[in-house]
C-alpha cells in the first residue's frame, strides 16, 4: 500500500548555512499514529513545516497522500490538517467563524453539520459564539484542533498538541486521537511527553540533529531496546553479591536487603529462571519480588545519548 507520507532525501539548509535536516528518508503508513521524538532543535517542527508547505525545502522529495507537495501542492495540502505548537489564533473572531474560515480556506464548501460535529466532539459547541480571546488555554488548544479538522483531512499533524494542557484534557485528547485513527486518519505526532507517544503511537521515529536515527514499531522498540528489572527483597541482609551470581547482571542495594537483576526483555524467561534456581541452591531466601519495565522515555534518552556519544 502506498504510504500517506513519503519523504525522500530531504534536506533543509537555512540562509545562514545551518542544516536543519540531513537527508531524511521516512514513510508513514495510512491510518497509523506515528510519533516523532527528538530533543529541542532536532528538526521536528522544520520537517512538519516543510510537509505542510510553510517552509520551503532545500532538496529532496516529499509526497502527501501520493501527491508531490511542490508540483501538486493543492492536492497534497488539501489532505493535510495541521495543529501547530503555538496557540496562534485571531483573538477577536468567534469560535464558529474561525473554524468555518479554516474549512473555506482549504477549498471546502460550507458544511455547518460537520463544523457542529467537530465542535461538539471537542466540547466547544457551547462556546461557538464566544470570541477566541475569552477562551482558556485548553479551549484554545482544542480550537486549534477543530480548525485542523474542519476540512476533514486524511493526514493530521499534531505538533506538541498537549503542551500546557492539564492531565484530564490530555487524556481526552488521546481519546480523540484514537477515535480519529479509527476513522482512518493518519496521525503524525511530535511530543515532549514521551508517555504520550508510549500511550498512543503505533510507530516511533527519533530525530536528532536533523537526522532520523531510528524508526521502529513501538512494541518492537520497547521489546528490543527495553530493559526489565527484577527486585528481590531478601529475608536476611547480604554484605555482597554471592560468588555464584558474580557472572549475572545482579547488583545489591545499599542496605543489603535487595538484589536487583537487570535483563533484556527478550531474554526474560531463561535468565530469571536461572537466577531463582541459583538462589534456591545457595539457600538465599526472599520474601517478595517485583519487576519493572523500562519506559519509552528511558529508551529514548538512552538512544539520544548513545548517538551523541558515538
Amino acid at each position, binding site marked *: 500500500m502506498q504510504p500517506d507520507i513519503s519523504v525522500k532525501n530531504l534536506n533543509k539548509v*537555512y540562509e545562514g548555512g545551518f542544516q536543519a535536516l540531513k537527508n531524511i528518508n521516512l514513510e508513514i503508513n495510512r491510518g497509523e499514529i506515528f510519533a516523532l521524538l527528538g530533543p529541542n532543535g532536532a528538526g521536528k517542527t522544520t520537517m512538519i513545516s516543510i510537509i505542510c508547505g510553510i*517552509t520551503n525545502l532545500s532538496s529532496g522529495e516529499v509526497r502527501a497522500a501520493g501527491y508531490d507537495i511542490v508540483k501538486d501542492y493543492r492536492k497534497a*495540502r488539501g489532505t493535510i490538517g495541521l495543529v501547530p505548537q503555538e496557540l496562534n489564533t485571531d483573538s477577536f*473572531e468567534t469560535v464558529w467563524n474561525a473554524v468555518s474560515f*479554516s474549512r473555506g480556506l482549504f477549498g471546502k464548501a460550507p458544511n455547518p453539520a460537520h463544523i457542529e460535529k467537530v465542535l461538539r466532539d471537542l466540547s466547544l459547541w457551547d462556546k461557538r459564539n464566544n470570541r477566541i480571546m475569552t477562551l482558556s488555554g485548553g479551549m484554545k488548544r482544542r480550537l486549534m484542533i477543530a480548525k485542523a479538522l474542519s476540512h476533514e483531512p486524511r493526514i493530521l499533524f499534531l505538533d506538541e498538541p498537549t503542551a500546557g494542557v492539564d492531565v484530564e484534557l490530555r487524556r481526552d485528547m488521546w481519546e480523540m486521537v484514537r477515535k480519529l485513527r479509527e476513522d482512518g486518519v493518519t496521525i503524525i505526532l511530535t511530543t515532549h511527553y514521551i508517555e504520550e507517544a508510549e500511550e498512543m503511537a503505533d510507530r516511533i521515529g527519533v530525530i536528532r540533529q536533523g537526522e532520523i536515527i531510528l524508526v521502529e514499531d513501538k512494541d518492537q522498540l520497547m521489546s528490543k531496546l527495553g530493559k526489565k528489572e527484577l527486585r528481590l527483597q531478601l529475608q536476611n541482609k547480604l554484605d555482597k553479591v554471592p560468588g555464584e551470581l558474580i557472572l549475572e547482571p545482579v547488583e545489591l542495594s545499599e542496605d543489603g536487603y535487595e538484589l536487583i537483576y537487570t535483563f533484556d526483555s527478550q531474554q526474560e524467561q531463561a535468565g530469571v529462571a536461572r537466577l531463582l534456581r541459583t538462589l534456591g541452591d545457595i539457600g538465599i531466601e526472599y520474601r517478595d519480588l517485583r519487576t519493572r519495565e523500562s519506559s519509552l522515555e528511558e529508551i529514548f534518552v538512552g538512544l539520544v545519548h548513545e548517538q551523541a556519544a558515538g
Partner: protein
Amino acid sequence: MNFYGVKAIYNFEMSRMRRTLMQSVLSPVISTCLYFIVFGSAIGSRMGNIDSIEYAAYIIPGLVMLSLLMQSISNASFGIYMPKFSGTIYEVLSAPVSYVEVVLGYVGAAATKSVILGLIILATARLFVDYSVLHPFWMLSFLVLTAVTFSMFGFIIGIWADGFEKLQIVPMMIVTPLTFLGGTFYSIDMLPEIWQTISLFNPVVYLISGFRWAFYGVSDVHVGISVGMTLLFLVACMGGIWWIFKTGYRLRT
C-alpha cells in the same frame, strides 16, 4: 481555482471591517468632512474659482483620492501584517491556495473597503458642496483602479513590515506628502514652472488629475497619461507581489 479559499479570506477581512467600523469608515469620513468644512466652506468661500470650478468643488476629487490612497494602503497592509504578527499566517501558507488567490482575497477586500469609503465620502461631500460628475464611468474606473493598485502596494508594505512602525512609515512619510503636493488643493498650473516640472515626477499628480477630469473635464495632465501611469504602477505592484511569493520573502523560510 480555490473559490472557497478566496471567499474565506475576503469574508474574513470584510468582517474585520464590520468589527472596526469606527476606525475603518467613520474616522476617515469625519477627517475628510473637516477638510471640506475648513478648506471648502471656510477658506474656500474666500478663494477664486480654479479652471472655472468653485474651489470647494475643485478639491473634492483630491480629498477623495487622499482617503482612497491612505485607506487602501492601510487596509491591505494591516490585513496581511496581522496574521504575520499573530502567527495565524501558518494557516494561509499551509492551505491549498495559490498566491493569486491569496492576493485576490486580501487585496480584493482592502480595495472593496476603500471603494465603499470613497463613495461614502463622495456622498457626504454632497452635504457641503454642490458638484457634478461629468464622466461617471471613468470616475468609477479611476476609483476602482486606484483602490486596487494601492491595496496591492499596501499588501507589499504589510509583507515587508516587521513592526507596526514600518506599517505607518510609508503612508505617513511618503504617500501623505505626495498627495498634498500632488494637486489636491490646487492645480499644478498655479506653481512656478520649475515646480510644475518637479511635480510631474510625483505619481499622485496623475491619479488626482485623472480623477478630477472624470468629475469636471479639466486636468493638469492628459487623461490618457493618467490612466497609463496608474496602470504602470499597478503592473509594478503585481511584479513586486509575484517576486514576494516566488521567493517566499518574509513569508516562507
